[in-house]
Each structure stands twice: as C-alpha cells, then as structure tokens.
C-alpha cells in the first residue's frame, strides 16, 4: 500500500489551538492522577470529570471540526500520489490551466479542489464527504494506491459529469457580463442541462489538461471579451490567454477533473 501524503503540514488555526489546549489540559490532569495516585475525594472526582469528560469532549469536538476543515485543503487532496500532478499543476504559478488559475485566487485558492468539486446544495457538504470516503476506499483497497501515474491517468475518471452548477456558484449566469457573451446565450439550455461543460475544450478549456492525453498541448480556451468584471475577479484570470481559435464545445461526458 502506498502511503498517502508526505509534505503536509498542520494548518494551525484558532480551532486547532483550542483543541490542542484542551488535549494538553486533559492529559496533564490524567498524568498527574496516574503518577500521584491521590485519594478519590470529591475534589479529585471533579478534576477527573474535567480530565476524562469535559476537556476530552472539547478536544474531540474541535479536532473533528479542524479535521473536517483540513479535508477541504488543496494539500489534503494532493496528498495521495495519484493526485500529485493535479496538485503540482495547481500550485505552479506559471501554469495557465483552469485549475491553476482558480488556485491562485486569494479567496479560495487554498481550497480550490473542494470549492470546485464539492456538490452544491443543502446536503452538498455531507454528500461530498461521503464521496470522499469512496476515494479513500478506492485508494487504499481499490488498487489506486499501487498505480503508477500513467496507469492512474487511464483509470481515474469522474464518477459523474462535472456539474456546471459548481462553476456557477461564483460565475452567476444572471449578470450582464455573462449574458452578453453570444456563446453563453446560444448554449444556455445545454449549459443548464449539463450537456455542454464550461470546462470543455471549446469553451474555457479543461481544468486539468495534462490529464487529457489526447489534448496535449493545452486545448484552446475561449475567452470572453470583458476584461474587468465581478465574474473575472471571483473566478479565472482576467488576462486573455494565447492560443489558437476556439474549437467547438465538447459534450460534458468528457469533462475534466480527477477523482476515482
């Protein structure tokens, strides 16, 4: 079994600090009790209540929330070796792939994998985490952990077509800048029904073009005209990219993205 992750550091936040404080406080009480073996009077029972119930509960709760937060980090997603190229590309400041440009966004760049791939909706968080359990299973017991990168490129695919709604969490289709692009209006029905993907070769390009062997070098990216808009601020880079003329939009069945 290939070990997941080798370069991850703890992301210390106020939540992890609370968790660590609770853990240290609890451990101190318990170790003192084990070493000194004091008489079991009421005062000691109350100390043990803190050390065995209150502080551990606080530590468990906060470490759980901190752990759930950690699972949304880009480093966490890239900690499995089959996601190594995705992580390297999205971390590359020179890369112009859709994923890399989103990962450079200061608002959510550190969580770009989760933000783009998480299901949108009331139960999106829970459903995404449940899907992540499948990833863990496939990686550790399904054979993906033993795959080379070349094997992984052939085997790993999205479980379902990438939902354009995930793009439209930020890039709303109701603003003028979106609607004034002729292709958006012409393909509105196909985009809403996910028959055409935003992240396709003829539109905004694959999010992870290196994972599409048949499309090397990077597929052409259709860039809309407006240079300054809220859409560009929230989403991809505003500067137009060099490249040949846009190709026809591709069906969503070949939408880009990783995930066993």
């Amino acid at each position, binding site marked *: 079994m290939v070990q997941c992750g080798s370069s*991850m550091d*703890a992301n210390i936040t106020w939540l992890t600090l609370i968790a*660590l404080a609770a*853990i240290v406080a609890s451990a101190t009480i318990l170790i003192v009790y084990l070493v000194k073996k004091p008489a079991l009077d009421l005062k000691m029972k109350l100390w043990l209540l803190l050390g065995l119930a209150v502080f551990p509960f606080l530590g468990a709760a906060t470490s759980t929330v901190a752990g759930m937060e*950690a699972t949304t*980090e880009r480093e*966490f997603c890239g900690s499995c070796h089959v996601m190594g190229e995705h992580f390297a590309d999205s971390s590359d400041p020179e890369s112009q792939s859709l994923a890399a440009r989103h990962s450079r966004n200061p608002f959510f760049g550190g969580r770009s994998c989760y933000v783009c791939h998480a299901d949108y909706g009331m139960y999106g968080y829970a459903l995404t985490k449940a899907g992540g359990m499948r990833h863990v299973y496939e990686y550790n017991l399904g054979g993906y952990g033993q795959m080379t990168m070349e094997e992984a490129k052939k085997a790993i695919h999205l479980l379902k077509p990438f939902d354009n709604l995930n793009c439209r969490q930020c890039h709303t289709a109701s603003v003028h800048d979106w609607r004034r692009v002729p292709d958006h209006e012409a393909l509105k029905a196909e985009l809403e029904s996910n028959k055409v993907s935003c992240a396709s070769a003829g539109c905004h390009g694959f999010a992870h073009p290196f994972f599409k062997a048949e499309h090397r070098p990077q597929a052409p990216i259709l860039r809309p005209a407006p240079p300054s808009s809220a859409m560009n601020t929230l989403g991809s880079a505003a500067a137009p990219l060099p490249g040949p003329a846009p190709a026809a939009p591709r069906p969503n069945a070949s939408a880009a993205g990783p995930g066993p």
Partner: protein
Amino acid sequence: MRLSVIARRRVKRTVPQLLRLACIVALLALAVFATSIFYPRPLVVIFSMSIGHVIGMLAGALYVLAIVLDTIRPAASIEPAVATSGAASDDAGDREALAHDEKAPEASADTEADDAPGSKG
C-alpha cells in the same frame, strides 16, 4: 450479607482500577486526536473521527462506571455487619467474611433444602 461484604471490597478495589484504566484509555484517545491535528492525512483523520471517538467514549464510560460504583458503595455500608470503616477493620472484615464463607456451604445447603418446594411436606 457476607456476600455484600465481599462485593463491597471488590468494588472498593475496582473503582481506582477503573479510573486508572479510564485515564490510560483517555490518554490514548487524546493522542489520536492530537495526531490528526498535526498530520491531517486521510487515514489519520478518518481514524481519529471514528476509532478515536470510540476510544474516547470508552474512557468516559469507564469513568461513569467508576463513579456509579463509588456512589452505590456507601449504601451497602449502612447494613450493621459492614458498618466498620478504616483499612484495618476492612481487612479484618475481609478475613471474617472469607472464614464465614468457608463454613457457609452447609448452612446455605440447609437453607436451600428448607426453601425447596415440597421439603416442608
């Protein structure tokens, strides 16, 4: 009554043992929680959120069990035969109870025979 004496002794010895065990189990759970904070990797985080929580709840349950046993123990000491207190008298009580238990089978057999259905006919 004699059996309650022995049970009381056992409970008295069990409570500190349970608490020590709870402390050790809780330390194990805390170590798992801390590991998931410092090394947030998939398996570590999943282990912490599942097995770690079970270990932590086990420690809490052991603590509650110890406190419950410690709470019900004084109720037994209300009985006259076990009204003595202090370590020396407890040891004496143990010896007395054990000595009585060695003689007890005959008496208890008689009692059972007396209580058996049809024995009084």
